């Protein structure tokens, strides 16, 4: 795939999130006032739907379920947040938001295994 239309920039109010369907891939568009991010629709912590559980203030996205939070400009992990936020490359053309979607970004809750051997110190 390539650049895919998400929605119009005007469709997402500042400091809000909108769930959109981009050719059958669910994407959340976050407007943090000075810019936009296109992200997978769930929190990487416990799969909360970010269009419902997420809030944006001061360019920070916070999932209100357990307060995992990311700076939407730098993508820095804030507080007790343990996993990075994945993002699609995004651009705005003529008021339209487009994301470069080569494949759907997921957090691989099933495949990823934080119980793997190399995860543990061998003391």
């Amino acid at each position, binding site marked *: 795939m390539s650049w895919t239309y998400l929605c119009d920039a005007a469709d997402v109010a500042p400091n809000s999130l909108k769930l959109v369907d981009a050719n059958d891939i669910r994407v959340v568009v976050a407007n943090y006032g000075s810019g936009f991010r296109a992200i997978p629709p769930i929190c990487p912590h416990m*799969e909360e739907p970010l269009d419902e559980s997420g809030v944006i203030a001061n360019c920070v996205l916070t999932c*209100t*379920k357990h307060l995992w939070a990311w700076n939407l400009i730098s993508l820095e992990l*804030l507080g007790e947040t343990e996993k990075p936020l994945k993002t699609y490359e995004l651009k705005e053309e003529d008021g339209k938001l487009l994301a470069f979607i080569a494949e759907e970004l997921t957090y691989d809750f099933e495949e990823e295994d*934080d*119980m793997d051997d190399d995860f543990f*110190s061998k003391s």
Partner: protein
Amino acid sequence: MTSLARADDLAAAPLARENCAVSVETKSGVFGFDCAPGETLLYAGLRHGLTLPHECATGTCGTCRGRVMTGEVDVAWEEAPGAARLKRDKGDVLLCQTRAVGDCVLRVPAEVAAKPARHQIPAYRTGLMENIRRLTGDVISFEVALSAPMDFDAGQFVVVEAPGLEGARAYSMVNFTRSADRIELVVKRKPSGGFGDWLFGATAEGAKVKVFGPLGRATFHADEHKNLLMIAGGSGIAGMMSILASAAEADHFRTRKGYVFFGVRTLADGFYLQEFAQRVAEAQGNLEVTLALSHEDPAGADHPDHPGVKLASGMVHEVAGRAMAGRYDDLIAYVAGPPPMVDGALRTLITQGGLSPSAIRYDKFG
């Protein structure tokens, strides 16, 4: 609050007859501890001082996830809400709902320390139910006279098990004292709530209960020197009362501000109002307490019977949001209550107050 390790399942379980040796591999090394017959792996690890990840300790939140690498275990409550996302085929369990049947090796995907940095190491105590009294139509308070004194931080909770009743339930302490030989707890009766029904019945007074704690990180520490914002609904006010008592003892409101917003349905549903009025008077202008009524418009701005307690109409997080505009400087916010109220309060604090997660403390029971 929440709960349930099912007593009927417990009775049928193939329990170990003697202590089991548990080894837990973590991101910060390997630790060993003994697990007593019938004891959950989480409680066993915690009472040995290990900082195993947990929040609710009663099966709902899913934080105490671990993997059984070797050894046999027994899961008490298979349907625990917090277990919904577990990879059971790989041996993943909730440590708060799992007992060792023999020696076992666990993995916990987290940094674990050998003892807590700030809080007390929890322990088992027994206690006697005393001074059960009704505060409103559906709220009851009781005291537990403890078999051994307990130190705790204001805002912490204990898990209580009553004989013959299904489940372990988490309740925040209302009082605050060092080496407490009794703790005061408060319960809001829910439809078909087993513990509430038992409390409202005739056999609870004098009954022997089992208490594990203290637990919880939504705590007050005077040496942080912060202004305090508390938003609570119903029995969620319990921990806030403990925080107010601790703050008063430390003379915290001599130099710091406090704001309490307590949500109930109607004026008749308010409780601890005399205590609030006294705290407000003691704080000499630095403590505001507002009773937010969700289903009634108050006749005036002040409580008719309890001077110093303000009244407002609306959901408590909305009332707090309106009253706190421009006053979020240098504060820590505490939140407790029913999940929708907690969610609303967190949104208010983040979006209107601009608070960072590190300035918000609440026990994650969902």
